């Protein structure tokens, strides 16, 4: 079952409605499918294509451009270790070597139990806290080898379940625009004048 489930279809429709053009929802909907399935499946891409009225090739073309989308089964926890300059200067590559040894897999692969996928990553915008890593895009700062081991042990023991949702979940909460407050998205070609506050102020001047 890798098409979006009913609940997520409803969510998808809410997301699509926020944009003046449906295709703008492409990336958010592929994220949604990854949240549901843990990775991006062909069936999900087809479903997203249907929802926003584009071809599956367009969804595929866009989705593969972005690194967060994974097209094969991925661990519940995706550990990204930064290797860009500031982290490299502070031992990021040594941390990666240690991580490979600890997990028993090379970067780019998943542990045998399917729990953890290890990856190289580029700059994570926490350069003063080098070396850094992210678990499902949640940072850990100034990570020592011993702390890495502890992190893995905690993940395996389920101690971080409350803080770190499974791979694919971008945020534990989402924006919901209340219907009674929403202005609503209008296709740009249907807008034919300045917004109200601009018009009225100009007339008043």
């Amino acid at each position, binding site marked *: 079952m890798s098409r979006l489930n009913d609940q997520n279809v409803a969510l998808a429709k809410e997301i699509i409605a926020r944009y003046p053009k449906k295709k703008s929802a492409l990336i958010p909907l592929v994220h949604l499918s990854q949240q549901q399935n843990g990775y991006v499946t062909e069936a999900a891409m087809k479903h997203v294509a249907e929802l926003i009225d584009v071809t599956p090739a367009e969804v595929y073309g866009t989705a593969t451009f972005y690194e967060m989308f994974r097209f094969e089964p991925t661990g519940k926890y995706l550990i990204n270790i930064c290797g860009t*300059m500031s982290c490299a200067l502070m031992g990021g590559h040594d941390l990666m070597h240690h991580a490979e040894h600890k997990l028993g897999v090379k970067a780019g692969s998943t542990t045998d139990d399917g729990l953890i996928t290890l990856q190289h990553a580029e700059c994570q915008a926490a350069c003063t806290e080098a070396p850094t890593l992210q678990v499902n895009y949640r940072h850990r700062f100034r990570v020592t080898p011993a702390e890495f081991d502890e992190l893995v042990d905690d993940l395996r023991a389920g101690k971080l379940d409350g803080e770190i949702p499974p791979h694919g979940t971008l*945020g534990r909460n989402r924006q919901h625009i209340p219907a009674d407050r929403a202005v609503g998205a209008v296709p740009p070609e249907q807008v034919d004048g300045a917004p109200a506050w601009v018009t009225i102020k100009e007339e008043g001047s």
Partner: protein
Amino acid sequence: MSAQGSYPWAAGYYDDGDRPQIVTSRFKYEDSHTIERYHATGGYEGLKKALSMRPEEVHDEVRKSTLLGRGGAGFPAGVKWGFTPQGVWPRYLVVNGDESEPGTYKDRLLMELDPHQLIEGCLIACYAAGLSQCFLYIRGEMAVAHERVAKALDDAYAHGYIGRNILGTDFSVDIVLHWGAGAYVVGEETALIESLEGERGMPRLKPPYFPAAIGLYGKPTIVNNVETLSNLPFIALNGSAAYTAIGTETSPGTRMIAVSGHVERPGVFEIVNGSTTFRDLIYGDEFSQGMREGRELKTFVPGGGSAPWFLPDQLDIPFEGREASSAGSMLGSGAVMVMDDTTDIPAAALTLVKFYAHESCGKCVPCREGGTWLYRIVERIVAGNGTDADLATILEVGESICPGDMPHAASARLGLDAVPFPYKMTTICFVGPSAYVPIHSAMTLFPEEFEAIVTKREVRTTIPVTAVPVGGA
């Protein structure tokens, strides 16, 4: 190791000096991201003040403040807003929260620690420039920022700050949180727009695609950086004079700078713009407090990974755009990466060459092919398998990306004069040149290190940075 949730509020952020604070004033509170704290500290007062003025008056105030864009190019925001063509509607605001320049982080802190300040800034911009919908594009890898901004948006809607008839006026705008999905190049504004349209984030050519004229859905679009917008509540509330009273005439206000690498106290600081120097920042007690373990400064990257490198010779240059460019580099995104005398220069350069080769969108041939080619050569050199021909080839490939004189810093040691920034380029955006900049700086300022490993085949004892492969290449 510290988890993200366990910041000593804002891990990496320091405000222990006696410095003016415009955008980081709430970072000291544990609940800085909540609407309650925001309300308790003057939140949304700037918006109310703005709504009491005519949109053009607010725009004028921003123009007078000379608020410079904080995304890297440093263009005045008020002027940018004025570029929208007359009578073309709708107009959009796109918030660039795709911060990913190596060495840089400030937007992430602003989104995680003070999301309402950003939201208020967005609203003021929309009001002043007649922008009828706002898209807040957050880099995909920032899960905590997503959660906090989403919550802040929900709260702001609930309080009537966003949506229909804001605070009972005829000002109505939606702010839509948009998730990125991991692509550095999307930080470029036209690529950001492509991405927001559901496309591959490949930059568009300017001309004709100046976003202010032809932007999102082909309509006039203002793209502003998170930090830029976060300054607006202050300017709206206190007026442009209060803002320009800080900093210098050409670079007013403050800006957030991240200092990372081999310093005693790496951190993010809100500094006074224009007058603070790199020496202040790297050696000052209220900033990074000098080199770690008392070592010597070897070189530093002054403005994010795409900036040409500076030497200790350039420490007294202040944070002022023109001074930096005449010295051969740029201030860019507000990130200083510092290397001490233990640093293996070719290996350090490799990390950046790899970054930009990896992040090429693939649109322009010089970047797509040239970046990866440079990466392969530098990787081989660092591994000890380089040749003299490789060094010549690097410069030739570089010439194909950046024809003509390449900016670099002056070096008293080598008797080199500075070549001013910027470079010419054969690509649409700066990603391609950025793959060449670090290796060009490294080879120009430290030729002996390349000679040592390429010509003399010296065995190195320490390699603090090592090569990892570009994905898939």
